[in-house]
């Protein structure tokens, strides 16, 4: 038989395309410019600034009490932990020792915030890879935590419950019971997450071996939180620089070595179990005592520089304050976890397909106001 060679005029050509709307973050606040050749990604360039409010400049004009209120507009899913970061900076600078009650309540609320953030992430993660059911399961459980927050401080999202010097007011009488009820409920629901999504063959094929980040790259890119830990890089601030009540609870740092999208997924699921364990260790033993330490109405930090890091649901948040001794800071810098995590997106996406980018972007768990600030 004769074989004929068909001459083709098809040319391979690189071109630009705008990513999304896919992930909730790409509905207007984050623009990703993709350079692609066919369906292979050659380059990902984020275009930022759509929700930039110059919070760092606003801080230079505000008092320290006011700054706290700006921080939960950054990473609104870790609002309580963001507030805590600024409060800890001020308290450490003034050398105020917090009552035990404050430390324990802050830690419990931080862990509830982490669970709320991770359940939302889990819902969105499933939705991104085509499993719409997860979205409703995730939001169902998150709603219960938001109800606890609402009863505690009146707000469901931007909590502002922390103030420099303690808590705004004491916890609601129902707090302990409702938190325990939630934990009991959530312990039966979290295994459902695994049966619904983790074990799903299609899901595993979409995520295993996709978007691999090595440990060296994770450190070089300043990755933190679950993104860094999935690459085997031990970076939990709660372990390495404990604050509030983290020094008195036992928990495991969720570590994986694969560094792929599935590992980042597993780390977050593991973290929810650890958060449950931390809350269980503290909820029955909330010490009695004051919830505030008296501070001056006008807080002035001594001249100097202060740095405080905390572990938000997304990773390491750093607050760097330069004070000249006046009532306003001279310079405030927020080192946000999402900013560093976004910078490695190009690195893990190049060479993969557009569908892989959707999956790996979902496990970076980006919150754009946190990046734009």
């Amino acid at each position: 038989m004769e074989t004929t060679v068909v001459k083709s005029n098809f040319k391979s050509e690189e071109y630009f395309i705008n990513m999304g709307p896919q992930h909730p973050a790409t509905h207007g606040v984050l623009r990703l410019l993709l350079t692609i050749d066919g369906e292979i990604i050659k380059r990902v360039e984020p275009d930022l600034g759509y929700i930039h409010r110059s919070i760092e400049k606003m801080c230079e004009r505000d008092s320290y009490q006011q700054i706290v209120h700006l921080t939960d507009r950054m990473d609104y899913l870790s609002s309580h932990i963001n507030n805590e970061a600024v409060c800890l900076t001020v308290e450490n600078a003034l050398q105020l020792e917090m009552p035990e009650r404050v430390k324990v309540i802050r830690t419990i609320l931080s862990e509830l915030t982490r669970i709320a953030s991770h359940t939302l992430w889990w819902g969105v993660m499933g939705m991104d890879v085509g499993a719409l059911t997860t979205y409703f399961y995730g939001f169902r459980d998150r709603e219960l935590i938001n109800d606890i927050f609402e009863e505690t401080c009146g707000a469901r999202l931007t909590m502002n419950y922390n103030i420099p010097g303690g808590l705004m007011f004491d916890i609601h009488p129902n707090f302990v019971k409702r938190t325990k009820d939630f934990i009991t409920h959530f312990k039966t629901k979290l295994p459902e997450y695994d049966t619904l999504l983790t074990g799903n063959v299609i899901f595993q094929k979409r995520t295993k071996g996709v978007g691999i980040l090595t440990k060296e790259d994770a450190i070089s890119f300043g990755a933190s939180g679950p993104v860094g830990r999935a690459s085997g890089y031990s970076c939990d601030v709660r372990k390495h620089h404990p604050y509030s009540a983290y020094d008195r609870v036992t928990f495991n740092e969720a570590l994986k070595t694969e560094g792929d999208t599935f590992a980042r997924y597993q780390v977050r699921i593991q973290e929810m179990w650890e958060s449950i364990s931390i809350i269980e260790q503290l909820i029955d033993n909330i010490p009695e005592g004051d919830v505030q330490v008296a501070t001056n109405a006008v807080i002035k930090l001594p001249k100097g520089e202060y740095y405080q890091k905390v572990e938000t649901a997304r990773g390491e948040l750093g607050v760097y304050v330069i004070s000249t001794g006046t009532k306003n800071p001279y310079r405030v810098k927020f080192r946000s976890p999402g900013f560093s995590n976004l910078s490695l997106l190009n690195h893990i996406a190049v060479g993969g397909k557009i569908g892989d980018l959707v999956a790996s972007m979902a496990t970076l768990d980006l919150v754009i106001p946190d990046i734009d600030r």
Partner: protein
Amino acid sequence: MTNEALQNLINTWIPDLEFSEEGSQFLNVTVTPENLHQLMIELKKNKETSFDLLFCLSGVDWQPELGVVYHLESTTHRHIIVVKVKTADRENPALDSVCDIWRTAEFHEREVFDFFGIKFNNHPNLKRLFLTDEWEGFPLRKDYEDEINMVIK
């Protein structure tokens, strides 16, 4: 490594550096723009220091100088150092980029360029990160004024 040991070791690489622990919980070292890149490479490469994590990079307007503060940590030794670099040139400030040492610096340096107007030599993609290319001035400088958008000057 203790702060004192760090200080002694770094002094053997580059003499006459200014060290300070006053008003800060970390060891601070101030370096001239000419020596910046050499010091940073040593801090990362040297086995005893091995500062492999740049966890924070901030621009600061000290008036009249502009500068950058680098927070470095070693993930093996768990010690921390703060490197500061200042330049008196406000018209055309330029510093060496550290992108080739820590890849996270690429985005952070673009942010500093955007807000403080400090140029970074050898940066692969130096352009504004958050603001539009047409934006005039650098908002986080202390002498920045915007008649429309700033409520309190």
